[in-house]
């Protein structure tokens, strides 16, 4: 049977016109919003390229900072230092976050403790990063009587936990009950079902959550001010002050010297590119060998 024309189904010309118009308006608003999101991103990145790229050279990646007045020097120690601090922060923060997310999604549904953990995670997410730095200062630096890369990692790890926890919980909640029942029905114990079925099914979303948390803390300066402190020389000792890109950028950008300003721009560019590169690498790595479902 042929579809009846709109008119004979009781839809007037006016109503049809209005629906069409609404459709166009909403689509237009979605496009405008997308542009509004993309423009600042592209602008910032472009400006960083414009200001920073010219100061980039091999020395930037191989040399440590030089004293004021001397030209040249680089941020090699800060790049490596950031890598070390972030690596340890991820090692500490991601397992704890995933563990808490699994607890919330698989074991604590409807319990008061679950609700308390969830609420705490949300509050923790809203705590200003400088407060995290002060907390790590009070807990570690003040007791040890010296700044340390370790304290910086702990501060960043605590910042990662709530994001990782909540995304893990949300992603596990999207795993259908029927898939869990299939595993339980095969006589697979609950812990194994959680590890090999629920977490595995939810893993793409959980990895995205971890990457979001990583990217967020990678650029943090405030938590490192009172913890990692910064260092003008090579040092990978996590028990000592250690250099980090955001700290170096902060110090250079606040300085009165043009040479340091240029290096700060270059540092910001390198920081952003490194974050993008690590997120991209993890995605490629995580997607390898993952079979895609048909429906």
């Amino acid at each position: 049977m042929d579809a009846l024309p709109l008119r004979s189904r009781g839809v007037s010309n006016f109503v049809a016109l209005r629906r069409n118009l609404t459709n166009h308006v909403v689509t237009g608003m979605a496009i405008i919003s997308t542009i509004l999101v993309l423009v600042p991103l592209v602008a910032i990145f472009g400006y960083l390229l414009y200001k920073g790229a010219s100061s980039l050279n091999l020395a930037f990646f191989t040399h440590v900072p030089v004293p004021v007045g001397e030209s040249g020097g680089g941020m090699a120690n800060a790049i490596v230092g950031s890598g070390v601090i972030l690596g340890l922060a991820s090692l500490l923060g991601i397992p704890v976050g995933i563990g808490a997310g699994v607890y919330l999604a698989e074991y604590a549904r409807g319990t008061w403790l679950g609700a308390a953990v969830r609420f705490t995670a949300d509050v923790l997410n809203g705590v200003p990063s400088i407060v995290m730095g002060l907390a790590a200062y009070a807990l570690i630096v003040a007791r040890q009587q010296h700044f340390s890369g370790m304290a910086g990692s702990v501060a960043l790890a605590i910042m990662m936990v709530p994001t990782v926890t909540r995304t893990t919980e949300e992603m596990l909640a999207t795993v259908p009950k029927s898939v869990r029942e299939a595993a339980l029905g095969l006589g697979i114990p609950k812990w194994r079902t959680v590890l090999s079925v629920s977490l595995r099914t939810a893993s793409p979303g959980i990895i995205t959550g971890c990457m979001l948390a990583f990217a967020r803390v990678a650029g943090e300066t405030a938590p490192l001010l009172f913890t990692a402190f910064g260092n003008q020389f090579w040092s990978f000792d996590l028990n000592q002050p250690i250099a980090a890109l955001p700290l170096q950028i902060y110090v250079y950008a606040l300085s009165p010297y043009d040479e340091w300003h240029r290096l700060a721009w270059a540092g910001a560019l390198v920081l952003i590119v490194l974050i993008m590169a690590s997120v991209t690498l993890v995605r490629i790595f995580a997607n390898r060998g993952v079979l895609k479902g048909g429906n």
Partner: protein
Amino acid sequence: MGVDIRVENLNAWYGPVHTLHDVSLHIPANHATALIGPSGCGKSTFVRCLNRMHETSPGARADGTVLMGDLDIYKDATPVEIRRRVGMVFQRPNPFPTMSIYDNVASGLKLNGFRKKRILDEVVERSLKQAALWDEVKDDLKKKSGASISGGQQQRLCIARALAVDPEVLLMDEPASALDPVSTAKIEDLIFKLKSQYTIVIVTHNMQQAARVAENTGFFLMGKLVEFAPTTKIFTNPSDKRTEDYITGRFG
């Protein structure tokens, strides 16, 4: 080989709601037994009590005796032990979406720590052949996801997955209700072939299906087992007026 199942005074609750009332019946070994009845009559709850799946729902509990052979499944065993001996096939095909076809079938063994590749290969092939799926998927065993094949194939994959752990009982909760008639016929053929080796309990909305595959049929209504008898008797000469009303289509 299958075992018989003896159920005595089984009651089940979802929170405060009493969904199953004093059900007692004897399911013979190596036969297919069908459970029919209108939606919400308790037949699904009943089969979920036979592998202690019922108690995984929040607030759910069951009370009574279920003997599988000589084993009292609520007293002498843990739910995990029971479920290794009782396979289950669900209403909607539920393959593990991130696993290959091979890993789906092998999952019951692999995730319980079994690793011998040669034996796994054999079990996967045997189970897929038993489920009449081998010829359709043998070239894509490790290439395709369990969720990438058609719905009917997915359901046979789920049957193969259940058979791979060598259960004694196979519970099927409306296994064909989400499938087209051709896939349904394939599932019914399978049940017919498998019932000489396994004790099969099948919940179905489709009375013709019960008549085609099962030796015995139980009729559930409002959480009670109204009648349990040989299938031919249920469909030709039921003793209870309510059974007759249901199978003649007067309600439900």
